[in-house]
């Protein structure tokens, strides 16, 4: 339930009227029987006992309030002023410190970023180098293999050639023997074979 200002004001007014009404009732009831007519006589002026007592009472009240109200509260207000001032000062100091730290952090961050960039650049360069090296090595190796393989092929060809020569020589001898019907001498044999081989080899190659 929303209660607005008017509600509280009316409650306050009603309370005041009720309290005051009750007070009047009590005032009326406190008189014994019928309330006498007020005489309205002014008080005696110059009652020195009342004057003296009032002065004493007033200064007692002043002393009491001084002890229990003005002194402690003024002291407390002063203390609060000091506290607030020191708090503000402290806050200012902390603010400055934080700003300094922020600056430092930013500087650190920038440095870190730079460093990171450097690291990345270095790593990239290293990777590039490694790549180039690997490629070069691979190429070199491949070349080596190629050369070796070529050499082997050449050797194998040579050998095959030699073997073919020998085989064809033996075949030729066998064919000549059959043709001549006799064994030929070692000398003829040799001569013929060499001749044949040379011719045949030239043809073969």
């Amino acid at each position, binding site marked *: 339930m929303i209660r607005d200002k008017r509600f509280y004001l009316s409650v306050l007014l009603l309370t005041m009227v009720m309290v005051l009404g009750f*007070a009047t009732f*009590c005032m009326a009831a*406190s008189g014994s029987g019928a309330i006498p007519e007020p005489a309205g006589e002014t*008080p005696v002026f110059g009652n020195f006992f009342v004057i003296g007592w009032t002065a004493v009472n007033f200064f007692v*009240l002043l002393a009491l309030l001084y002890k229990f109200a003005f002194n402690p*509260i003024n002291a407390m207000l002063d203390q609060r002023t000091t506290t607030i001032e020191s708090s503000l000062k402290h806050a200012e100091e902390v603010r400055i410190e934080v700003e300094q730290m922020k600056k430092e952090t930013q500087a650190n961050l920038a440095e870190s970023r730079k460093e990171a960039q450097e690291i990345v650049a270095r790593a990239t360069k290293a990777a590039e180098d490694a790549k180039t090296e690997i490629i070069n090595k691979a190429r070199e190796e491949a070349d080596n293999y190629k050369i070796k393989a070529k050499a082997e092929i050449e050797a194998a060809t040579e050998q095959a050639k030699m073997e073919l020569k020998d085989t064809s020589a033996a075949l030729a001898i066998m064919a000549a023997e059959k043709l001549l019907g006799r064994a030929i001498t070692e000398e003829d044999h040799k001569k013929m074979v060499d001749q044949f081989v040379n011719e045949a080899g030239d043809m073969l190659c």
Partner: protein
Amino acid sequence: MIFGMHDGVLFNIGPIPVDHLVVTQWVIIALLGTIAFFATRNMQEVPRGLQNAFEAIITWANDFFTQLMDKPHVAKKWAPLLTTFFLFILVSNYSGLLPGSATVDGFQPPTSNWNVTMTLALITFFSIHVAGFAEHSLHYFGHFVSPSPLMLPLNLVEEVAHPLSLTVRLFGNIFGEEMVIAYLLFLAPFVVPAAIMGLSLLLGAIQAIVFTILSASYIAAASGEGH
């Protein structure tokens, strides 16, 4: 024997008679002292409850008197006295709203007796001159013959008029208010006086404020520049 407004002796302490309204003052002092005691018993840096209320009153009074007087150190020196005037007169005036006040024999607000208001006004009177003397020393007495010695009688009358006006204003207002309530109670005992009592709530506060402000301005005038 007058109706309620009877300034009579309640008892004697040795040869000294103690009037009814002196006892009422004691009750008022005890009440204010007790409230002050409990307000500042456990002072805390962050105020709460009663301490807060009392601090608010005193801070407000300090600020108010500082604004009223052109010298802050004078305001600081006299603020306790003036605040005590205010609290004492306020509670005295409001004691007239208690049931039985002005109908019970001898029970009346102390401020409805002009012996009491005169005492308060005399305290103001002496405070004015003490404040003036403290601020300007012997030069202070120069203002009695300013702008020319011919003005001396008029200046003296003015000095006497200050406490006299304070006395009669406070006494007249509160006494009159009490009498009006007493007569209304006599004529129509129920509810009808409530309207006047509501008004006297306002009146009591206004008279306390007026007495305090006038005292403060007299002190400010005596201690300020121009002497």
